[in-house]
């Protein structure tokens, strides 16, 4: 089983390579000299000549492309213009934070979204159903960044329940137990904002899947055995509809990753998003290029994992 999981995740590699190729062409499409983007403006001309040779910047496109792709495969993305740190290291440092934020947000979105969907499906076409659907619609239409700032203004600044950003308080001389709590405290608001924003999607998918499943014969058969509406919904329709919901969710993972980028920037959360945006502002192009590939890969892997989970839950494929 573990072997099978790994095998399917390998499918992420060609996509990561494709994204890297895409970035290569974006750089090539830059107005002005593309090679200028890849050379550190602060380095000495001597160093840059060496870099030119390494990256093959004076060679024809095909060769440059080959070198670029080879570098991608070896995870060699050069060094940051800002501090000479290898780009790979910067990404490795930022990735776990993004994973943490994304996972917790996803969990929150799932919890809220499923609860809303169950409430809706248990009373279809009722006032509650319409209200919940309307809330989901409006939530999906509202810019996340506005929600984030409202949350900061009301919950962080206004009521002081949460810190306004970062990962740790300045008073970092806390014992390990409290330290963890402090970290969670800082994670709470960004994860909540992203989670609530994403919950709309979840509830929409889940409600649709539930309503469809409720019309299946086996649900009616359970009611024929005396099961109440509630039992039929929770014990029969809900579990059987999960694989469909998760499969749809998988398609939205890229959107979640985009949201994470945004939320990280607003809350100063030290993940890939803040790294990417910071690099863009600083014109630190090697980091931008690698960041794009890394984030795309993260989204792809998330998507694949969701598909695997959905397949596992699919009654036709078999639930152990």
């Amino acid at each position, binding site marked *: 089983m573990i072997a099978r999981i790994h095998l399917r995740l390998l499918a992420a590699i060609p996509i990561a390579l494709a994204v890297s190729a895409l970035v290569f062409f974006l750089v090539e499409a830059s107005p002005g000299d593309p090679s200028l983007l890849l050379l550190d403006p602060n380095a000495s001309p001597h160093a840059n000549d060496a870099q030119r040779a390494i990256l093959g910047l004076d060679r024809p496109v095909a060769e440059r492309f080959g070198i670029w792709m080879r570098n991608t495969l070896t995870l060699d993305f050069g060094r940051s213009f800002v501090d000479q740190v290898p780009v790979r290291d910067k990404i490795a440092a930022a990735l776990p934070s993004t994973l943490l934020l994304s996972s917790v947000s996803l969990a929150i979105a799932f919890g809220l979204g499923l609860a809303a969907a169950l409430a809706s499906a248990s009373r279809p076409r009722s006032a509650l159903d319409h209200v919940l659907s309307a809330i989901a619609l409006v939530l999906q239409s509202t810019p996340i960044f506005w929600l984030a700032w409202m949350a900061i203004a009301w919950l962080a600044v206004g009521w002081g329940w949460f810190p306004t950003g970062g990962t740790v308080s300045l008073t970092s001389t806390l014992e390990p137990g409290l330290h963890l709590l402090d970290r969670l405290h800082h994670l709470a608001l960004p994860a909540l904002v992203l989670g609530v924003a994403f919950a709309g999607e979840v509830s929409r998918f889940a409600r649709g899947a539930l309503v469809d499943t409720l019309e299946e014969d086996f649900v*009616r058969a359970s009611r024929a*055995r005396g099961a109440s509406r509630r039992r039929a919904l929770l014990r029969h329709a809900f579990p059987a509809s999960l694989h469909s919901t998760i499969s749809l969710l998988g398609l939205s993972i890229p959107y979640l990753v985009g949201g994470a980028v945004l939320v990280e920037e607003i809350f100063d959360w030290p993940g890939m998003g803040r790294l990417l945006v910071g690099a863009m502002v600083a014109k630190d192009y090697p980091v931008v290029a690698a960041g794009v590939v890394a984030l795309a890969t993260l989204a792809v892997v998330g998507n694949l994992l969701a598909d695997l989970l959905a397949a596992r839950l699919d009654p036709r494929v*078999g639930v152990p």
Partner: protein
Amino acid sequence: MILEVRDLRVRLGSTFVLDGVSLSIGAGECVAVVGDSGSGKTTLALACMGLLPRGGRVVEGSIRFDGRELVGAGERELDELRGRSMAMLFQEPAAALDPIQRVGAQVSETLEVHGLARGPESRGRVVEALRDAGVPNAERILGEVPHRLSGGLRQRVALASAIVARPRLLFADEPTTALDPPLRSHVLGLLGRLRRETGLAVVLISHDRDAVARHAQRVVALRRGRAAEAAATP
């Protein structure tokens, strides 16, 4: 009379699937409902069980179970009756079993919901019902998931789940279509035995003329939602 249906009119969406159907059945009897597909046979059963699909509605008429009016009855009242007093065997056995839940849990659901038995007693009754329905290795399939079973086996599991609580009325919607001849006669034989031994009333919805002729005392023929009743030669 266990069940008395009078002048039932049922609407599904914008069409009248049943347009003035009457039927009555007493303990131990078997009434067959025949007709082409689309004539409303399954809808009749669903209406009596109170399980019409979304958009379905009883517009007119009366359905009395043991003298109690079911049309307009509350959900809780109907939940009480379903499984324990009235049961239904659905047409497509593959579709009528929860694909994720294990066989044992599904067959025992009625017992669990109505608090009729628990634990080992429940298991015992489940095994008994499966054996009655013609499943040889009843214990072995308790932990199985339906899609791993053959069509015939699924049909028998569904039957077991319908009779496990010894209901008084059973709607059997094409109970023999998925089965080969030897099993067919076994199942029909079982229904006959239950009728004689427990007074089970069976509404047999079927294409199988042979089965109808052999088992039904009366036949209700539906054509486009309307009924013509005739007696069958016993």
